[in-house]
């Protein structure tokens, strides 16, 4: 199951799908990965079949925005709250009752049922219960078999993607088929990242048939098989889904990033080039030129402050190079980037963008900051202390960020946030000695 032929790093080492190491692991589990991948379907109810913990700690946490006008189920939490009683007698009856309750009270377009460690261990027949309810209520009820113990977040995302492929894709035919229809795969629209570039694609003449799963709709993903191209945005875990769709429906795929000016333009080019339509390509170039010019005007106020500033980047996956490229686009020199959580392919790309790639942030980050007189650290919240100790500015670029850094519009947000951080006196102030420490 861990062998994925479409993963380029798989030939030598399956690093991102490795078994987690007891006592030396801090990442999320497969269940969390499955949640992340599917929760943005706001018109479906997401029912977690397990104890309340799996959901109690994780509902209403991710800012995955949606334009769905009905009740938005993304931030809501549904859980069968399995208790001792259910563990002894089995939880199938409770699951069936919960499904009835949801159909009766919430009227969703579909229900995803997430298996968890406990319900996998007690052997609940989730497939059967879902199938029975699906026949009874006549809406898709999709079991997602990604209990936490099967592996990491990445693997869970992949399993969730495949559950959608098997249960939903190809189950509905659209009224017409668009010649330039694409599926967006792996953008979860965190802080509205997808909305930064989707309108641009549409202006060029490309139609987004469906998405997995940012701002996604069940009825659209059911027609995903009619798209002409799959576009993987920042999510290696869903490459399997794309490979299988290529095999099953003959849909090719491209992998792109929408962080930064160059990468956004290149992403658009990759998409239109895949169609090979001259008119489309010309239109794309026209709009790219227009957007880049607009962006340059908007970035002007920031140029003076950002010019010559040095940064270190410590984030995960393809952000290790995509954010680096975005920073370079606003005139920052990226001294080094951490590739601890990146695949070999990402490491190779990162090396093209950034002179130094490092793997052990605990040791190397502080040293690099001193050696290169770095001005700003961009990382996840855990690196904040490194920045404060070194009295340099800090910007959080991981999932807890508050605004979108995606595409042309997001790059302006990034420039603005970096400028605010650089201008803020607190990083120097809090590092000062107390009066009683002065001799």
């Amino acid at each position: 199951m861990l062998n994925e032929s479409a993963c380029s790093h798989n030939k030598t080492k399956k690093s991102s799908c490795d078994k987690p190491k007891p006592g030396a692991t801090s990442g999320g589990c497969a269940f969390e990965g499955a949640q992340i991948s599917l929760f943005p379907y706001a018109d479906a109810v997401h029912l977690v079949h397990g104890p309340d913990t799996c959901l109690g700690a994780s509902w209403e946490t991710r800012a995955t925005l949606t334009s769905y006008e009905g009740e938005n189920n993304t931030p809501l939490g549904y859980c069968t709250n399995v208790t001792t009683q259910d563990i002894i007698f089995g939880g199938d009856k409770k699951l069936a009752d919960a499904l009835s309750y949801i159909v009766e009270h919430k009227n969703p377009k579909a229900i995803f049922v997430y298996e968890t460690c406990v319900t996998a261990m007690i052997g609940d027949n989730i497939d059967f219960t879902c199938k029975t309810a699906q026949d009874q209520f006549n809406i898709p009820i999709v079991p997602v078999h990604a209990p936490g113990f099967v592996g990491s977040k990445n693997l869970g995302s992949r399993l969730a993607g495949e559950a959608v492929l098997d249960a939903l894709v190809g189950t509905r035919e659209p009224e017409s088929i668009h010649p330039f229809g694409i599926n967006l795969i792996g953008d979860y629209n965190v802080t509205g990242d997808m909305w930064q570039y989707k309108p641009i694609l549409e202006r060029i003449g490309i139609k987004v048939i469906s998405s997995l799963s940012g701002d996604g709709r069940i009825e659209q993903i059911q027609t995903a098989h009619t798209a002409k191209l799959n576009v993987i945005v920042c999510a290696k875990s869903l490459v399997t889904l794309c490979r299988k769709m290529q095999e099953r429906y003959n849909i090719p795929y491209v992998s792109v990033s929408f962080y930064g000016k160059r990468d956004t333009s290149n992403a658009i080019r990759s998409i239109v080039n895949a169609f090979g339509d001259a008119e489309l390509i010309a239109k794309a170039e026209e709009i790219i030129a227009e957007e880049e010019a607009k962006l340059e005007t908007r970035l002007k106020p920031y140029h003076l402050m950002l010019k010559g500033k040095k940064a270190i980047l410590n984030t995960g996956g393809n952000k290790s190079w995509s954010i680096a490229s975005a920073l370079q686009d606003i005139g920052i020199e990226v001294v080094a980037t951490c590739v601890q959580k990146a695949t070999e392919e990402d490491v190779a790309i990162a090396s093209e963008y950034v002179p130094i790639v490092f793997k052990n942030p605990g040791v190397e980050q502080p040293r690099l900051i001193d050696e290169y007189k770095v001005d700003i650290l961009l990382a996840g919240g855990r690196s904040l202390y490194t920045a404060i100790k070194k009295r340099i500015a800090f910007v959080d670029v991981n999932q807890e960020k508050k605004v979108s850094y995606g595409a042309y519009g997001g790059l302006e947000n990034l420039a603005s946030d970096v400028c605010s951080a650089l201008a803020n006196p607190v990083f120097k102030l809090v590092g000062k000695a107390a009066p009683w420490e002065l001799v």
Partner: protein
Amino acid sequence: MGASMNLKELKTTSLKPLHVNPLKLSQPMGATLAFLGIKNCMPLMHGAQGCASFTKVLFTRHFNDPIAIQTTAVNDITAVIDGGDKGISEAVENITKKVTPDLVGLFTTGMTETKGDDIKGATLLLKEKQKMVYVHTPDFEGGLESGWSLSVQNIITQLIEPTTQVKKDKVLLIPNVNLSPIEVEKLKEALELLDLVVFALPDLSDSLDGHLGVKQGALSSGGISVLDIEKLGNSGAVITVGRSIKKCGEIFSEKFPQSMHLHFDSLIGLEASDDFYAKILAYMDEKSVPNSVKRWRARLQDVLLDTHFTLGKAKILIADEPDSAYAISKALREAGSTCEAYISQRSEVQEAFTCKVAIGDFEEVEKALPQMDMLITNYHGERLAHKHHKALLIRGFPNYEQVGIGLRHNILYEGSCAFLCEVNNLLGHH
């Protein structure tokens, strides 16, 4: 105080086959926080990696501070074959490669309890290598409060050394999980002001109070030391705050019969604070308190009168952990508010409530909200309060909206003043 409600009269929503927007947090999460109140401790959650990851993220965002925690990262193979000991010893080995914990707090999750892992045996096998405490905390039973309480119970039975000595002026303070780090510190100060030597177990007052540490520790950064815990047996009294940890005091008294157990269900409001000083003074055979205490009591009397105009008319819905919901409702009743409470799990404290109380989720909370003026609950209440245009006071776990959670002080005379004023002002200006 009104008559206690009969347990049988309590409305329960347990007939619903699911939770919609759960209020409940889990036992392993309570255990995590308890072990974070011990110095140089590594909480080690025995389960799939996600349980620890979710917990870490929730508390990091809640406290805005780094959270030390590790996982035994049970996978599909070890979930079926291993009895637990291999994963646990491997975890301890990997942890001690990087850091040297004074204690590893090992606790279970739903999965490892379902398969029935022998964590006691695993701990015994490792006892030459690493000092450990083990606790059974399945997440299909109990919740945040019971996970915290079970951990303290096991720390008492497994870690405190036997003794028959007693020091009358030394006291062991056991707070419930809802007390903020600064509240634990204020409580310690209040007792120290009466010339007592106080040890809090767990002690979050200098581990999760949001202070700027020298470096980001991989282990808990403050709290009671293991050495101090081992020597707690000679405490003259054990003071428990909250019904969820009453049993901890009982277990301590059983193990150390020479100590006295002083229990308080709540410390918010005039009656609760008076009761606190009455019992402590009786224990010490004292009659008076320092002037600052007297001044704060007089201020609380005044605040009660000042706030009763607004609070007396207010209908308030509380959804929180049982001990916290009880303490808040009791304090608000003193100024005449009408309260209704939803709690996350069954609890002995239900008997003590004088207002309507039910076990429920946020779906139930939302149904009851239109008839109320204010909602007191965790971060998840924000959307509901906005939707129904109600005043909102954020209390409980998690709170992702606000900063300074560790510095919020709502107990005894001084904290109760702050609490009542805050509620009053929110009701007036929402």
